[in-house]
């Protein structure tokens, strides 16, 4: 077998090769020092991507976090409210369910602005459920002050939240 491309290594690591193809790649990796070195060099990035938590978490993403036993806490916030949502001890990740009427909606966009009013992120096509969007707050990204989150559904503003952690 000829040596492997980066694309093949990525597809293999992601589990997207057919079983026979995956086995051929694996046998080659065990037998070829150069390809093994390339794959070893690539692995930290792919592993880090697995641990990279998006700002808005889908149900599948939440299940993945639970599978990995990531200590997390949950809370929920209704639209139009100014709320204090402290970080519970023992968890570095807080999932805040932003409640909003999203049944029948085709697309949801989300923007978060920091205490200074500047945007921290603005995302289109975020994952959502019929009644909510799940915002992932990581402890090491916290800052004092109030954050404003805005949800738009099919280009219409549908909900706003003001959240502080301190």
């Amino acid at each position, binding site marked *: 077998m000829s040596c492997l491309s*980066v*694309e093949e290594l*990525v*597809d*293999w*690591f*992601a*589990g*997207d090769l057919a079983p026979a193809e995956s086995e051929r790649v*694996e*046998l080659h*990796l*065990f*037998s*070829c*020092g150069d390809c*093994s*070195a390339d*794959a*070893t060099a690539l*692995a*930290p*990035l*792919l*592993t*880090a*991507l*697995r*641990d*990279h*938590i*998006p700002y808005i978490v*889908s149900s*599948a*993403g939440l*299940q*993945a976090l639970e599978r*990995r036993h990531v200590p997390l806490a949950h809370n929920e916030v209704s639209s139009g409210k100014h709320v204090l949502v402290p970080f519970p001890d023992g968890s570095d990740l807080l999932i805040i369910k932003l409640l909003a009427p999203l049944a029948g909606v085709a697309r949801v966009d989300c923007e978060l602005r920091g205490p200074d009013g500047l945007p921290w*992120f603005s*995302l*289109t*096509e975020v994952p959502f459920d019929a009644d909510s969007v799940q915002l992932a707050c990581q402890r090491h990204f916290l800052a004092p002050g109030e954050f404003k989150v805005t949800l738009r559904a099919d280009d219409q503003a549908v909900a706003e939240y003001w959240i502080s952690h301190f």
Partner: protein
Amino acid sequence: MRVSAWYRPKVSSDADLARRIAVGDSEAESELCRRFAPRVRLYGLRHLRDEEAARDLTQQALLVLIEALRANKLEAPDRLGAFLFGACRNLILSMRRGERRAIVELEEATVAPADPGVDRRRLASCFDGLPRREQQLLTMSFHEERPLEEIASALALTAVNARVIRHRAIARLRDCMGAA
């Protein structure tokens, strides 16, 4: 040509390592472990998705290999990789069934060093700089661990297109991370 006992070739082939281990060369055992530990660990990360489990697999697999070499049991000493691959597959099946061999602590050289890791803040910054579609693909592929066919369907893409976008995203990230 006779080779003096004190002479060792700079880079030994797999077959040469196997022959040396069969006659009790502990240095060859260390070299073998250094050579193959990263490969086993990588295989473990792919299939077990857990660093600790991958390290466990590495220890067990290398022990199986060394024991076989010491006992001169390998039919094809030049195909250590293939033997080790088979051993890893069997071990993972056992691990999934909940079986555990007694873990024998091998020399430190057998354990592949942990990844130096990536700068997570740098990664976050580079990730945020990706086009939205690429962010979605990477999150769904690696964080959510969803099959590419499913991701393509969810994003209204063909599987081929999804694969291309993912590769482009990885290339962009590597460039961005490498430029740090």
